């Protein structure tokens, strides 16, 4: 068997963002993989130390647009932990609404991109059209289709007046049937099964060893969701099950995502139904003392962790974060081993890799 090494770029990998792989092939099968990140490295962990805590809310929202709300909300949670601030109950629910809307849109984008990667263009367009319901809702409520600008230190800076609540209820209603249909399609459609089932398998032992997170882990039967394991915000008062699959293949990962998107609809409805009255934010300009804190959340791609260290000034001494995608690249070595070259784009996209997040 001949061994050769090929370099793949964003075009060959069917990625929206620049990322390069060096792939070792045995015949036409993948034997090994070297991931070469850094194209979207903007030095953000350095920039945040030169920006004050307020500026960092906006800067971090631009870390990545697909999970843009998770970053400022988790960063604000870390600041609030250092300052001993309990955000108002209404703000907890409004943060959850923003996070779940983003989760639905993010998961659908991932499923759409995979449909595109295997040439299922009508399905790609269909998923993107369903996602538009969320895009329109984001613009209607937050004023932008990607970056919501929902968070401030101490709470949120948007409200849901009654007409917005009615609008969101309707949007959630509009999502239910399409999401149910998409789930069945990704679960049972023979053409999708042929491309996605038993493809890119990550056995659960390997998943534990690689320490993968999010839908990639839950598709391997790992029962870990930060919203359950380390509850934050409103999640301790919301009713939901952790979406799980066991096959660890491309299909399982998509079924986890589509089940979660459907569950996010329910979570948003619960938030709207339970939304407590009261203030949106504790204090416009709270005092941030010296200290250190960790805050975590379940971003669309999995566990997101922030570490903040302050010295009583407006600037962080250190602000470090680890995005979920960071943990999932390594598992591609396992998923791709023995797979034909033609499956590489699909499998790579099946971990929903976020390069802007990874590179920072």
């Amino acid at each position: 068997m001949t061994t050769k090494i090929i370099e793949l770029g964003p075009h060959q990998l069917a990625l929206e963002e620049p990322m390069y792989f060096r792939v070792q092939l045995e015949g036409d099968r993948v034997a090994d993989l070297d991931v070469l990140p850094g194209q979207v490295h903007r030095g953000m962990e350095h920039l945040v130390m030169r920006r004050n805590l307020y500026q960092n809310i906006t800067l971090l929202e631009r870390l990545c647009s697909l999970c843009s709300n998770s970053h400022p909300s988790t960063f604000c949670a870390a600041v609030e932990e250092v300052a001993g601030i309990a955000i108002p109950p209404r703000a907890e629910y409004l943060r959850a609404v923003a996070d779940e809307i983003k989760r639905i849109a993010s998961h659908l984008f991932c499923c759409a991109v995979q449909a595109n990667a295997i040439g299922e263009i009508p399905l790609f367009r269909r998923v993107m059209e369903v996602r538009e319901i969320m895009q329109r809702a984001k613009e209607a409520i937050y004023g932008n289709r990607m970056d919501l600008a929902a968070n401030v230190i101490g709470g949120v800076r948007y409200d849901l007046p009654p007409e917005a609540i009615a609008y969101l209820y309707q949007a959630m209603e509009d999502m239910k049937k399409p999401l149910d249909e998409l789930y069945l399609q990704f679960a049972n459609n023979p053409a999708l099964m042929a491309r996605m089932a038993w493809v890119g398998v990550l056995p659960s032992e390997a998943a534990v060893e690689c320490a993968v997170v999010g839908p990639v882990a839950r598709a391997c039967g790992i029962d870990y969701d930060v919203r359950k394991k380390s509850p934050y915000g409103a999640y301790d008062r919301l009713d939901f099950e952790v979406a799980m699959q066991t096959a660890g293949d491309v299909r399982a990962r998509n079924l986890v995502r589509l089940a979660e998107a459907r569950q996010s609809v329910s979570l948003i409805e619960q938030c709207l139904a339970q939304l407590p009255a009261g203030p949106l934010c504790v204090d416009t300009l709270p005092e941030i003392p010296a200290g250190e804190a960790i805050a975590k959340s379940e971003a669309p791609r999995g566990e997101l962790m922030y570490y903040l260290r302050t010295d009583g000034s407006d600037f962080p001494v250190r602000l470090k974060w680890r995005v979920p995608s960071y943990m999932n690249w390594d598992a591609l070595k396992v998923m791709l081993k023995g797979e034909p070259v033609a499956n590489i784009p699909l499998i790579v996209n099946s971990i929903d890799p976020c390069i802007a997040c990874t590179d920072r």
Partner: protein
Amino acid sequence: MHMQVEETTVEPVRLFRINTGSCNGCDVELAVTSAVTEFDVEQLGCRYTEDATEADVLLITGPLTVKARDEVLRLYAETPRDRITVAVGVCPVSGGVFRDSYAVDGPIERYLPVDVNVPGCPPRPQALLAGIGEALQIRQARRAGVEPVGRADGKGQEGDNFPARCRLSFDASVCVDCRMCRHVCAAGAIRFQEVEGGVRLTLWHNSCVFCGLCSHYCPTGALSVTGDWRLDHPAADAFAQVERGDIPYAPCSGCGEPIVPAAPQLLHTAFRRPTPEIDKLTALCPACRQVMSIGAPGR
């Protein structure tokens, strides 16, 4: 526009994208213009291509990272010489929130000429289509050997259902020069300058990321977010995309020093129902205020 429609029946205009290290917001929205019927670039007679050598219009996103630069320039060199280049979002023009990082090598104009800018963070699909439309006009004009005229259509666009966060508006008459807006602006889009007889605020829309934090923290509502999303413009006008206003000095009613008097909006924020005594404070400089309040000069 009818000339472009004619062209679609013959050959679509080919769009080619280069991501120079973006947060993916502009890229995901560009994907929408190839996937969602309402915003499909087909309505402009365009189609996306994966082949740089076919690029009629080049769409550039991101602040240009050091690591992406070589590949970006290699792809750019492959595009035809008569391509029209569009900078999508504020990053290619100014770096946006990423400016001044050790890992960022933009603005893109250091390396290649840009024809059209489409501010936004990210721009909504309607704005992307408007920007591409403007590029098509320039392309038509260049092919006909004439100067391009203005942008595709000049009418102000506020009239849709969504109060999108777009152009910022500044009302100098209620500004109290507290500069909180500049303090919270992640993109360094706001500058204050001493000018003749007052203080000038300048907000640059090619750096602004439209987060609205300035307006959120503005105590008097001097800065506000409008829904005007038509910000696309010829790249030659990049530095003229500003919102500005002069906050005039008035003499302190105690000593005559020029000061920025407090706006009534600030008093209402601070005191809810200001008394005439408090009102008097607004026209006093800090030193005179101290004298009035505690009756002794400061050190």
